[in-house]
């Protein structure tokens, strides 16, 4: 039995963090790759990569299976530490200073260090452990600049699985056993 990660709760926590830090309305912070419309600027697109299990990453706990059944068995619980990347991309008009894309993402990054936000991440089962720099990726779109900035953040979480394995209860010998 695999206990799936509650990705909806994870995504909701991340979305709330970005919306609160950027000050944008909730509908202006979107998850990409959904085939939806592009909001008018300023807006922020979120993109998740992963997860990947890091290292061995598995701890096991073995206990007698108590669920009944035709044969004796044990419960094996495994927990994997996983890591995923988040790209936070801001899109704005061709402006500088406070309205720029980089200025939009700076408070988002800063807020990820606050004790309150770390607790909110924890309640969603994730831990923010690495934040990259806010990069200015402004581009020319047709004849004007579009302000773009990128913040990459890494998170860790755990996911578990449980499997029921049979075990050898008795061993018999047929014939003569010699030492």
């Amino acid at each position, binding site marked *: 039995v695999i206990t799936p990660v509650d990705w909806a709760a994870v*995504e*909701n926590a991340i*979305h709330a963090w970005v919306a609160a830090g950027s000050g944008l309305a*909730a*509908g202006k*912070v*979107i*998850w990409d790759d*959904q*085939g*939806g*419309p*592009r*909001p*008018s600027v300023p807006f922020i697109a*979120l993109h998740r990569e992963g997860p990947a299990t890091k290292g061995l990453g598995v701890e096991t706990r073995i206990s007698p299976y108590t669920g009944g059944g035709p044969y004796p068995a044990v419960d094996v619980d495994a927990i994997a530490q996983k890591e995923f990347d988040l790209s936070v991309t801001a899109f704005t008009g061709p402006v500088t200073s406070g309205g720029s894309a980089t200025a939009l993402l700076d408070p988002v990054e800063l807020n990820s260090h606050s004790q309150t936000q770390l607790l909110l991440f924890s309640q969603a089962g994730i831990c923010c452990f690495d934040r990259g720099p806010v990069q200015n990726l402004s581009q020319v779109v047709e004849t004007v600049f579009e302000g773009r900035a990128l913040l990459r953040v890494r998170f860790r979480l755990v996911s578990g699985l449980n499997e029921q394995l049979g075990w050898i209860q008795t061993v018999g010998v047929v014939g003569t056993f010699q030492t």
Partner: protein
Amino acid sequence: VKRQAVPQNVTVTRAAASAYDVNGRVSLGSASSFSIQAAVQPATGRDLMRLPEAFRVSDVQAVWSPVPLRTFDQPSATPADVLTLANGAIYQVEHVEDWSGNGTYFKVLARRIGT
């Protein structure tokens, strides 16, 4: 349109505007259908040049429609109209020319996306 080519029955499937919820997830608009009589002919090489490069090797048909059809529109968040021709082939509207002032028709370039 009827004087230029033999029209056929074309079903137009049109989706309403999409929107995002408070968690940034999209809610696609519901779709509705209506029928039009339109002339459908293969697109010319010049027509294909109006489309993005990746679409020029697709099966593209020129559709002369008596009503305006929609391409994908980012500001209004409406997806492109999807056309089902009389033979069952499915096309997506990629380009629309408004000739309603001179010829009372709309020339549409549609790219095949399904059987």
